[in-house]
C-alpha cells in the first residue's frame, strides 16, 4: 500500500517524522487537539505580548470611568478604580498561566524522580516508604494542601508555585513508578544492564526518556487543574500578593460589585474556563496520541 494512501495517514506521518506536513496532517485528524493547541497558544501568546496588546497600563486608575460597562472605550469594562478590565486580564494571564505551567513542570520533575527511584528500589523498604508518603499527600484535598503550604511559605509568586507543585507531585510519582516498572521489564533495559551500564546511566538514558511521554500528557491535563487551584488560592487571598492582577484575585475583588458590575467576575472567570478547556483538550489529545 502506498504510504500516502488516505487510509494510513499515521504511517505516512511516521515515514516523514518532523516534517511539518506530516504533523499538520495528523493534527487535522484530531480536531480536538488542534482546537486545544490553538487556545493554549493564543493564551500563552497573549500573556507574553500583554504589554503590547493591552490598551491601558493594567494599574492605571481613572476615577471618571469607574465600573463602566463593556463598551467602545473599554472593551471589557472597568473596575471600581476605573482600571481597564481587558488590560488587567492580559496582565493576569502571565501570572495565572505561567505559575500553573511552572508548578506542574516542577511537580513533574520531582514526581518523576521519586517514581523512578521507587521503581528502581522496588521490593525494598524505600519503595514502600516513598509511595506511602505519596499516598498520604494524595489523601489531602488538593486545594486544602495548597492552602496549608501557601500559608506556611507566605504569599508571593514563587511560594504559590511551590505550593501548587507540592500538590501535584504524588500523582506524577505514581504514574512514573508504574511506567518505569513496565519499562524496566523490557529487553533493551536488560541488554543495557548486561553490557555494564551504570545505574544512573540506565535510569537517565533508558528508563526516564521512555516514561516522559505519558508524564507530559498527564502534565498538560494537570495544568488545567493547576490554573483552577492558583485561581482558588488567589480568590481566597492566599496566592500572589494583591497588586499582581491574577485572574482569581480579579474575581474575588469583583465579587463585591457582582450586582452592579458582573463583568468584573464574568471575564476573568471566562478566561480561566477557556484556558482550562484548552489545556484539557491538549492533554486528552496527547494522551490518545501516545
Amino acid at each position, binding site marked *: 500500500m502506498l504510504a500516502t494512501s488516505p487510509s494510513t495517514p499515521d504511517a505516512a506521518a511516521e515515514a516523514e517524522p518532523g516534517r511539518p506536513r506530516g504533523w499538520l496532517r495528523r493534527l487535522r485528524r484530531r480536531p480536538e487537539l488542534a482546537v486545544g493547541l490553538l487556545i493554549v497558544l493564543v493564551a500563552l501568546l497573549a500573556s507574553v505580548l500583554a504589554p503590547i496588546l493591552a490598551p491601558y497600563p493594567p494599574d492605571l486608575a481613572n476615577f471618571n470611568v469607574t465600573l463602566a460597562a463593556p463598551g467602545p472605550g473599554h472593551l471589557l469594562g472597568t473596575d471600581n478604580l476605573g482600571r481597564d478590565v481587558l488590560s488587567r486580564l492580559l496582565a493576569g494571564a502571565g501570572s495565572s498561566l505561567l505559575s500553573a505551567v511552572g508548578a506542574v513542570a516542577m511537580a513533574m520533575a520531582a514526581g518523576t524522580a521519586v517514581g523512578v527511584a521507587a521503581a528502581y528500589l522496588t521490593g525494598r523498604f524505600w519503595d514502600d516508604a516513598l509511595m506511602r508518603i505519596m499516598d498520604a499527600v494524595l489523601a489531602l484535598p488538593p486545594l486544602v494542601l495548597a492552602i*496549608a503550604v501557601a500559608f506556611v511559605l507566605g504569599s508571593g509568586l514563587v511560594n504559590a508555585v511551590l505550593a501548587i507543585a507540592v500538590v501535584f507531585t504524588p500523582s506524577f510519582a505514581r504514574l512514573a513508578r508504574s511506567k518505569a516498572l513496565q519499562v524496566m521489564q523490557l529487553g533493551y533495559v536488560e541488554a543495557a544492564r548486561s553490557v555494564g551500564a551504570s545505574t544512573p546511566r540506565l535510569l537517565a538514558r533508558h528508563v526516564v526518556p521512555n516514561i516522559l511521554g505519558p508524564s507530559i500528557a498527564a502534565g498538560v491535563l494537570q495544568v488545567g487543574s493547576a490554573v483552577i487551584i492558583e485561581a482558588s488560592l488567589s480568590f481566597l487571598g492566599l496566592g500572589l500578593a494583591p497588586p499582581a492582577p491574577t485572574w482569581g484575585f480579579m474575581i474575588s475583588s469583583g465579587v463585591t460589585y457582582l450586582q452592579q458590575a458582573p463583568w468584573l467576575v464574568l471575564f476573568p472567570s471566562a478566561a480561566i474556563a477557556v484556558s482550562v478547556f484548552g489545556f484539557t483538550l491538549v492533554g486528552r489529545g496527547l494522551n490518545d496520541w501516545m
Partner: protein
Amino acid sequence: MLAYAVRRLAVSVVTLILTATITFSLVHLVPGSPVEIILGLQATSAEIATLTRELHLNLPVWQQYLDWLGGLAHGQLGTSLVYHQPVLSLVAQALPHTLELSLVAVVMSLVVALPVGVYIGYRARTGVDQGVSAAATVGAVVPGFVWGLVFIYVFVYRLHVAQIAGIASISTAEWVNPLSYVLPAVALGLGLAPSLIQVLRTEVIEVYRADFVRTARSKGMSELRVAIHDVLRNALLPLLTVVGTQFGLLLSGVVIIENIFSIPGVGNLLVGGVFNRDYPVILGTVLVLGAIIIVINLLVDLAYGLIDPRVSYQ
C-alpha cells in the same frame, strides 16, 4: 473478606498517621518558626517566648511530634489561639455543614449522571452522545466557584428567588428556601457530575458488548429493563471508585463554595484559621479533611466486596 478488611483498615491507619505526620511537618520542617509567622516581624521577645511556650515549641521536636500523635489518639486537636476553644469542638460544629453539602452534591450528581450516562452510553457515537459529552467537558472545566458566583448573580441578584443561604441547613432544622439550599450543592456537583457521566458512558458501552446483554435481549426483555437490570448494575462498580477518587476534588471545591455562600463548614474554618494565623485550627482542619478522604476510600474499597462477590482479595 474479613482478612482483607482488616489489612485494608491497617493501610488506612498507616496512611492517616503519615498524613498527620506530613501535616505536623508542615509546621516544623519549613524554615522559620511558626511563632514568627503568627506574630509577624514586630513581635517583642516576651510575646515570642510566651507563644513558644503556649505552642510547646520549646520542647524537642520528637517530643512535640509524639505529643501531637498522642493527642490525636485521644481525639484532641489542640486549642485555637483565637477562639480559645478546643479545635475538636470547632470542627465538630463545622463538620455537619461540610458533610451535608458534600453529600447533597454527590447525591444530586448521581441522580443526574446515572440516567444520562447510561443513555449516552446506549446511544454512543450519535448526536445526543456527542452533544452531552461536549456539555460534560465544558461543565468540567468551569470551576465550582464560578458556577457559585453565576448562581448568586442570576438567582439572588437578578431573579430575587433565593438568598445566600448562610447558616441554614437541614441539620439545624431551620426553614430555608429550597432553592437557596440546593444552589451551593449544585455549584459543587457540577464539577463532579461530568466525570461520573464520562466514566459511566465508557463502562456502559463496554457492558453492552457482553454476552449476558445479548442473552437478556434474546429472552425478550425490554431495552429499559436490560439497561437498568443488566447494564447499569454492572457499570456501577467503577462509578463507585470514581466517587472515591473524586472526593478530594469535591472537598477542594467545598472550601471555596463555603466561602462564597458563607456556609460555616470546615472549609470556612480553615480559611478563617489562615487569616487569623491560628495554627492549631489550620492543622486540625487539614487533618480532618484528609481523614474524611481516607475513610471514604476505605469504605469504597470495602463496599466493592459487598456489591460484587466476584471481586477476589489476595
